[in-house]
């Protein structure tokens, strides 16, 4: 098992290198640069040249990439870049004075807190609902939960979030309209400080967590239901029952555990997507997360930010997928990694 994990981690290196290279090249292939204009105004060529020289955008592409990757000193050039290998994701071209590391440090923890709570909510709602629906197949409970799942899957957050704000924040006044309850500095760089973990923090979190969590919960519920329905018809379940095990043990220990494999499979990408930020929910709830940087940095042609956030997403994704694969072995004893 350990050898398997080490091998997988070594495989991350070419994957992440490829992600960096593709993002780097693709973004620069799009017409229009970060400094061609200020607002509607075109900038004179010498002004653009000054700015490009400052950020080394006048270097040939291969050299820019190497500088981004390993740093200026290893290239024998003068410049501020230490390279991705030393954890320097470069300066933001749009937010001058901030580095990509600064941006991630401020906004990733907020996204991670929101995403983690949403995923937790999704699991807490999704798995029991799916289980009940499967065990009570074709009863009113099944129909109700399937119907609810379809509803929550089909309402986009773009619609759900403003409706939640309107009902629960403006009309009823139960929760704040927008913003997040914790500010940097964060505990261990990610968690809210203990002093911030109060009613204010959670009242800010409830609506966005609900908006983000319910659509994932709906997907998990449907998947759990389908998978469990398949598993309960397997031979080993019949064996378990014929051994005289209690129905509760049969379902929880034998059936549910195995039926979670498809659920765990989607949890990897879902975790990566939720934890690195979601554009729409963060935008509508005015949450200072990483989600917006995935979108706005493209319009801004903020090359280092695009590459940096994509790389962060890729890292979280490959780690989440590794955890998923390891979990398989625990969920299903027939799976072995050697």
């Amino acid at each position, binding site marked *: 098992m350990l050898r398997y994990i080490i091998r997988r981690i070594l495989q991350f290196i070419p994957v992440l290198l490829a992600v960096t290279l593709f993002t780097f090249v693709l973004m620069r292939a799009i017409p229009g640069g970060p400094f061609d204009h*200020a607002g*509607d105004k*075109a900038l004179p060529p010498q002004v653009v040249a000054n*700015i490009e020289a400052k950020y080394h955008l006048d270097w040939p592409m291969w050299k820019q990439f190497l500088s981004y990757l390993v740093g200026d000193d290893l290239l024998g050039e003068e410049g501020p870049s230490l390279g991705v290998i030393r954890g320097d994701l470069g300066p933001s071209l749009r937010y*001058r004075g901030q580095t990509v590391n600064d941006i991630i440090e401020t906004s990733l923890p907020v996204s991670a807190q929101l995403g983690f709570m949403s995923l937790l909510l999704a699991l807490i709602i999704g798995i029991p609902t799916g289980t009940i629906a499967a065990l009570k197949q074709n009863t009113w409970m099944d129909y109700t939960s399937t119907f609810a799942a379809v509803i929550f899957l089909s309402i986009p957050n773009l619609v759900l979030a403003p409706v939640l704000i309107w009902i629960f924040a403006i009309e009823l006044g139960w929760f704040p309209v927008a913003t997040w309850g914790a*500010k*940097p*500095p964060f505990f261990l760089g990610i968690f809210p400080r203990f*002093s911030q973990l109060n009613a204010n923090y959670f009242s800010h979190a409830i609506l966005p967590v609900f908006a983000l969590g319910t659509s994932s919960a709906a997907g998990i519920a449907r998947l759990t239901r389908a998978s469990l329905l398949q598993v309960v018809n397997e031979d080993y379940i019949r064996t378990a029952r014929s051994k005289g095990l209690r129905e509760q043990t049969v379902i929880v220990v034998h059936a549910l555990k195995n039926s979670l494999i498809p659920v765990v499979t989607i949890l990897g990408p879902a975790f990566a997507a939720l934890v690195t930020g979601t554009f729409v929910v963060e935008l509508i709830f005015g949450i200072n997360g990483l989600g917006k940087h995935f979108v706005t940095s493209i319009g801004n042609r903020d090359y280092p930010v695009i590459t940096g956030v994509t790389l962060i997403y890729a890292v979280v994704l490959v780690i989440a997928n590794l955890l998923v694969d390891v979990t398989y072995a625990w969920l299903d004893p027939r799976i072995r990694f050697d």
Partner: protein
Amino acid sequence: MKKNTTLWLVISMLIVSSMVLTACGGSGALAEDPVTLNWNWGTEPPTIDPSLATDTTSVDVVGNTFMGLTRFDPVTGEVIPYLATSWESGEDADGNQTWTFTMREDVSWVSYDAETGKVSKVEGHENVTAHDVVYGVKRTVNPETASDYSYVLYIVKNAAAINGGEEGVSLDDLGVAALDDYTVQFTLERKAGYFPAIAGMWIANAMPQWAIEANPDSWTEPENFVSNGPYVLESWVHGGELNLAKNPLFFDADAVQVERVHGVIIEEESTAFSLYENGELDSTSVPSAEIDRVKADPELSAEYTQIPVPCTYYYGFVNTKEPFDDVRVRIAFAQSIDRQGLIDNVVKGGQIPATSFAPPGIFGAPEPGTVGLAYDTEAAKASLQAYLDDKGITIDDFNAMDIVLMHNTSEGHANIAAAIQQMWADNLGAEVRVENQEWGVYLDTITKDTAIEEVPHIFRLGWCADYPDENNWIHEVFNSDEGANRVRTDNADFNALTVAAGEAQDPAERAALYEQAEKMFAEEIVGYAPIYHYTAMNVTQSWVTRNFPPLGANDFYNWTVDEAARGN
């Protein structure tokens, strides 16, 4: 038992460390209950470095923390004294125009200490002097600073050469000098009656050399920031909130009523509007979807203001692309746009129909509707027919030329394009194809260097004022020797006219020359079709008294908040 001890140790360490962190994060108190303005910046300011700022949010922060030599009157838009008390124009030995500014002597450099909540003068740099202004101007022009707006200062002697890295000139040759500690003199490349407006812009601010050199990349962070205006930077959580606190050492501090600006950064307009309705914001823009409700609601309609914004929306013609290389076609297209109908039925914001370029409030701008081609379908049709007859073609042959109107991707632009496309079809029988591109790609497409086959016949753009003078408009945008010249005109008479207008010294003469230039470009050259002058829709709580400055930063220091009324 052993396990338990370890667990307790870990928990108590976590508690202690969180307390330590809290202590570090606490911000210093101002007055017990400062008079607070709850504001939404709308977007994270890309920078608050005066040399680098270009967008309205950054300029708002810079304008409230720094003093320009001059500023605009928030009501009339006139240039009035600020850091400079007076200025006069003269001539140097070589006959170049000079502008000499006499500065206040009671303005201090201050910094804010978040722990004590105190604002104090910077030791060794108590007073803002002419040398600080000289440093600021040189810093903006220095190519190493890489300032976007450095080109606005190209009017200053040698600025363009220095900024362009020309050999043989250095920063010492720049036309700016401190005559004494409180007198600064600019020498210009050519005469400019509008220069006092430029001198007040953020890029020409006095800047704290020692603070910038100590932390070149992070001097704008709250712990390093040094400023001289009515407010100091209290705290800045990037992307989350930026708060300002009153500078009690400001020379006119007694006149500043708002003691704290609590500024959140909410990008989504409808969310900001919800916050406003919940009483959490004191002023915000009205999303277009809410306009009808705001106007109908008795309370909201009383808080609603429609304000003119010095920006113009226009369709540019590519003057060298067939059939738009013929003025009769351009006249026909410009004259068959029903601007009022477009405003009433499509954009709906009470905009002002535009037939010329610079909007009201800009020095030299013609009265709307007096210059340019008004909506006249008969004349438009006749103009197009004259072209068709001359070329010996029919309207079908004309339509076969596949005329393209392009805009950058946006629902609003698409709606306007669809409406105008229909007007051209109804009024002229002309068929136009509408295309759109993503903003960055679009700006690349419509430059004057794009091959003629790839550029659209008609493109949409907007222009907003940097300073309230026609020079910033008809000259900087449409003079083909100066501006981006996306419309690809080449008219020596017109170019000479806008230059002459900028150099004229008598205001009445300048205004008359600009009007002539506007008239020539809109009626004779017909390089473009102006569509409308912008408006903004705002709601402000009844307890706030504010200005809507037509230009420059929002002047929080002139606003008032009635905290007692807010409670009710």
